[in-house]
């Protein structure tokens, strides 16, 4: 045994059979022990007992270097590092061999898996020979938080953060907070059958946002850029101009005199709003806002009626937008959902049959502040009376409604609701997931309508009815009041000349084709990530799932942590959920955010460049760093800013003197690992430690397989792999080398990706004939199958050589 390793031990986790059933642990122990290396194994190393075992063995054997063979380091890496630190070792003295996602789960052949497991452990042992303790880099965390999105999730998170003593900025892109919950009128609750008034729950919370001295509310504002890193983010915000100053009293005189009617997004597109308006009457802040796309003044006409009407002189057409820069320690993303575009299902006629609407549109209709003031109407019979609109502040339409309800023709008698429109739908354009809220929303609306309009015939066409937990009581009550349920997904809706509808479906319980006549059809549209959610994910550079929701780090252990430290997510930006679940999750996000801020100063990831000042000749090539992490200090020495550095390793390529190395990924460490891991005929993959690494782990999670002669070595990015290392890999027997890189889907990777491509091409050229054995692959998280396929085909090619 190597002298450097005489105080080294290996710990192997069974992972309750996940590892031990596919890898012969006894054989591993036998081989390593024969070489004089102590090996211990345990059912669950991640358990308290497992960690006690590790600590005890370190203390008993005065061990100084540890290899753990377990699940992926992205799962329990931090835990194990903490464990050895508690036993007095430096965190750099631990290496984790991924025996689960990279071995046991992907190689069904036990002999092959065991052989590979041994080589993975050898790679880590080799690496440890060259390890030096890493110094901790600590930063102070800015004791302020930013919450993005002012719906119920963002409001709850902001109030909780403030209650925890943290100064919080709440940013909302609309002119008022409130989000979708402000639109839906009534909310269902699990413990009682009555529906609560959404605004009655929401309004006090919104007012608390304004009243709380620790919350700064920024509406009509969007996040433009985020830089810096966990604990010290710099956020750039664009505060659009309202053209109305804060001294607005909210009296509404301006809106009454405004001659321009515009489409009201809050009321699902009804044209019942003025060019100067509040988002809704309980808007917070209660400051009017001018829409410059419609205001006559901005279209070059002279109007100015609102200016004349305003007694406080709040209106100012020359108001400019503002750019605001903030420093915050943590960010909570609460950017919410939007309804699936149901016009993608033309068989339901949405958009051309007037009496087909969505649940959200029905919610607006049933809301007393909605376009019909809470009166159930057939949209085909409903028209706004323009006189009624222009004479009142926020567009009362009561007069026109009184007319139509007098006639009584406008009230729909037969209502059909169609569930799972765009949810649980495997067809192109649909979403495979269940949207979770729609069964309850349909039950709630049915109950409301049945109470207010007894005798209405309501039929709910469902696929499966999911009234989970205590909601079952609600479901039963709705059945009891006479709502009909038909199991089946309607095929088509037909519009009759009188604008009534016919819903055609197969009742799958009696297997008969049925036609349901209806005056009004409600589509329960899927919940999809809002445009804001998609945009913010790209601005913040955080991972999304295949549907565009922001992906949590771990569904159970870290349900509100995004892929980046210091950025948390809650509500429907993370996955479809109802108001109750949103509030619970927002509370958790706030607690995680405040815990993150409280844990200051924080130790940073230290896998960043170290500069050997003896080798450095101040050529300043490294100052070409695209993130501008390098600079010269007062005495002319090159220094690196650990907060700005992404650890990509481009500087190691720039530095001709070899003075820069990435801690934890030095040339000698990588060489040593390759030597241990690679056997004759292997495919060696260098995996970017970001998305690419998650994708490689996901191959195991998805129960896919690839040949066991595929060996993966993690690198910050492939920029740290140089010609020397590649030649070394070929010398050790690698038949081919594959670079697995993160896709350029985020601002950071958009910068790094082109560098990795040109690095790859340069290496290919430098290698000459061997260049044909170097490959490059972009790894997208959803494309686990594709990556496993690449591994398999390249490994097979290697075998043929």
């Amino acid at each position, binding site marked *: 045994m190597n002298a450097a390793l005489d105080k080294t031990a290996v710990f192997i986790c069974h992972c309750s059979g996940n590892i031990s059933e596919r890898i012969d642990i006894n054989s591993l122990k036998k081989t390593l022990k024969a070489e004089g290396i102590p090996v211990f194994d345990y059912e669950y190393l991640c358990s308290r007992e497992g960690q006690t075992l590790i600590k005890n063995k370190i203390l008993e054997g005065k061990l100084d270097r540890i290899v753990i063979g377990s699940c992926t380091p992205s799962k329990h890496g931090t835990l194990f590092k903490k464990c050895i630190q508690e036993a007095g070792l430096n965190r750099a003295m631990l290496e984790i061999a991924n025996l689960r996602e990279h071995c046991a789960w992907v190689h069904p052949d036990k002999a092959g898996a065991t052989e590979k497991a041994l080589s993975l452990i050898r790679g880590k042992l080799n690496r440890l020979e060259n390890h030096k303790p890493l110094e901790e880099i600590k930063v102070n965390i800015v004791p302020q938080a930013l919450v993005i999105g002012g719906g119920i999730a963002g409001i709850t998170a902001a109030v909780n953060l403030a209650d925890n003593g943290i100064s919080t900025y709440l940013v909302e892109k609309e002119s008022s907070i409130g989000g979708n919950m402000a639109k839906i009128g009534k909310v269902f609750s699990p413990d009682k059958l009555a529906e609560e008034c959404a605004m009655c729950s929401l309004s006090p919370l919104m007012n608390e946002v304004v009243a709380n001295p620790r919350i700064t509310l920024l509406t009509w504002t969007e996040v433009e850029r985020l830089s810096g890193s966990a604990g010290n983010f710099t956020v750039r915000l664009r505060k659009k101009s309202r053209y109305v100053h804060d001294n607005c009293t909210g009296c509404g005189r301006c809106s009454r005199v405004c001659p321009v009617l515009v489409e009201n997004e809050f009321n699902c597109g009804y044209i019942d709003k003025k060019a100067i308006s509040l988002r809704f009457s309980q808007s917070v802040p209660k400051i009017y806002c001018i829409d410059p796309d419609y205001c006559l003044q901005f279209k070059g006409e002279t109007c100015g009626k609102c200016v004349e009407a305003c007694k406080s002189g709040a209106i100012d057409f020359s108001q400019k937008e503002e750019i605001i820069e903030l420093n915050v320690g943590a960010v909570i993303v609460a950017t919410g959902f939007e309804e699936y575009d149901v016009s*993608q*299902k*033309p*068989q339901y*006629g949405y958009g*051309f049959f007037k009496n087909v609407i969505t649940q959200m549109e029905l919610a607006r209709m049933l809301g007393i502040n909605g376009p019909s003031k809470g009166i159930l109407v057939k949209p085909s019979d409903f028209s706004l009376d323009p006189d009624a609109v222009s004479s009142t502040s926020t567009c009362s339409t009561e007069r026109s409604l009184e007319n139509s309800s007098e006639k009584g023709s406008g009230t729909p008698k037969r209502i059909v609701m169609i569930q799972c429109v765009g949810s649980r739908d495997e*067809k*192109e*354009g649909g979403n495979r997931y269940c949207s979770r809220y729609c069964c309850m929303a349909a039950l709630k609306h049915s109950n409301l309508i049945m109470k207010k309009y007894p005798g209405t015939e309501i039929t709910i066409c469902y696929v499966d009815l999911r009234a989970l937990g205590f909601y079952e009581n609600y479901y039963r009550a709705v059945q009891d009041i006479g709502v009909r349920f038909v199991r089946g997904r309607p*095929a*088509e809706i*037909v519009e009759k000349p009188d604008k009534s509808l016919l819903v055609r479906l197969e009742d799958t319980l009696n297997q008969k084709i049925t036609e349901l006549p209806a005056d009004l059809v409600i589509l329960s549209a899927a919940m999809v990530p809002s445009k804001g959610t998609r945009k913010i994910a790209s601005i913040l550079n955080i991972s999304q799932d295949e549907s565009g929701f922001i992906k949590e780090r771990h569904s159970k252990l870290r349900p509100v942590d995004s892929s980046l430290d210091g950025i948390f997510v809650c509500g429907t930006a993370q996955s479809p959920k109802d108001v109750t679940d949103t509030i619970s999750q927002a509370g958790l996000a706030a607690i995680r955010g405040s815990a993150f801020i409280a844990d200051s100063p924080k130790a940073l990831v230290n896998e960043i460049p170290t500069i050997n000042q003896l080798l450095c000749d101040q050529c300043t090539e490294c100052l070409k760093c695209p993130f501008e992490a390098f600079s010269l200090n007062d005495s002319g020495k090159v220094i690196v800013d650990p907060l700005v550095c992404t650890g990509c390793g481009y500087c190691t390529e720039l530095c001709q003197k070899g003075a820069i190395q990435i801690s934890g990924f030095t040339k000698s460490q990588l060489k040593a690992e390759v030597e241990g891991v690679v056997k004759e005929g292997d495919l060696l993959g260098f995996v970017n430690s970001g998305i690419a690494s998650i994708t490689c782990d996901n191959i195991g999670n998805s129960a896919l397989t690839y040949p066991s002669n595929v060996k993966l070595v993690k690198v910050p990015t492939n920029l740290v792999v140089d010609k020397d290392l590649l030649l070394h890999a070929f010398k050790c027997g690698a038949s081919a080398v594959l670079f697995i890189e993160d896709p350029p889907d985020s601002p950071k990777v958009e910068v790094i990706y082109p560098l990795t491509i040109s690095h790859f091409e340069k290496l290919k050229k430098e290698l000459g004939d061997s260049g044909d054995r170097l490959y490059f692959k972009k790894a997208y998280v959803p494309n686990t199958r594709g990556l496993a396929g690449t591994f398999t085909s390249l490994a097979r090619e290697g075998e043929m050589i």
Partner: protein
Amino acid sequence: MKAIEDVPDNQLLLFKSCMVGQEYPGVETSTCYIFDRLGIDYCINDEQSCCTGIGHYTDVFEGLTTAAIAARNFAVAKRCGYPNITCLCSTCYAVNKEACETLNTNTEVREKINSIFLEKGLENLVYEKDDMNPRTNFYHAVEILLSKVDKIREQKKFDFSGIKTASHHACHYYKVKYLDVLGNPENPQLIDNISAACGAEPVRWYEDRTLTCGMGFSQLHLNKDTSLQVTKTKLDSLQRAGVELMLHMCPNCQIQYDRYQPVIEREFGVKYDMVHMNIAQFAALSMGADPYKVCGFQTHSVPLEGFLEKNGII
């Protein structure tokens, strides 16, 4: 889903269809007329044989024979250097695509067929796994037309503005291989978009738009009443929607509607105002093709003279 940018315009083997050749030869000549004017690189190969579709769906040919004949046709396509099989008939399209998948994934079938080829001294027909790609080697001619819709619009000589058209997208195109359709398979728009480029007004949605034409191959002969009832349902819906011209992309559908519309009128005592064409015939017509020499309207059962006169073509 297919992407329109990925639809090729070269090395296309225009796959002859028995139903087109027998019933509406104008569909093939119209397609060639357009392809020639759009600069599309295609060939027609006389060595190609029928896809067996009509025989397959009437239980005359079983799957193995169908796959063997497909393998032979693939060899023909590859040998002449035109490996992108482009079908005029949606049944040829589905049968060839399906056969290609079977040949790639079912080793037993592939080896059996290859052993028959070898036994008979037909080494040149042997199909190796992945010789053809079911997703990228098979197209419907309408997909090619759609990919060049801007050129069709530029070159149109007759404007059909105000003509209400309805599209009947063939089941064997968008239902059999629904994951591999241009656009949303629940709302195919291929024919609509081409007809709009020709100036016509496609009706956005009509009752029973997704209903089959009713032919069902043997069903037309074995269960004639049901078959014609289905066809009538759709014709009734189109009549209500005020459609003048129904556009097709499959000769089987066209037979069902054009040949049987007079039969339905007679048997059910009804009268319909609409006429029928393949979308290629319509596009060729708008580009100035001769209605008889190119579009072959003399082979239709529902006379088109009224339509042509009204639009000033004859």
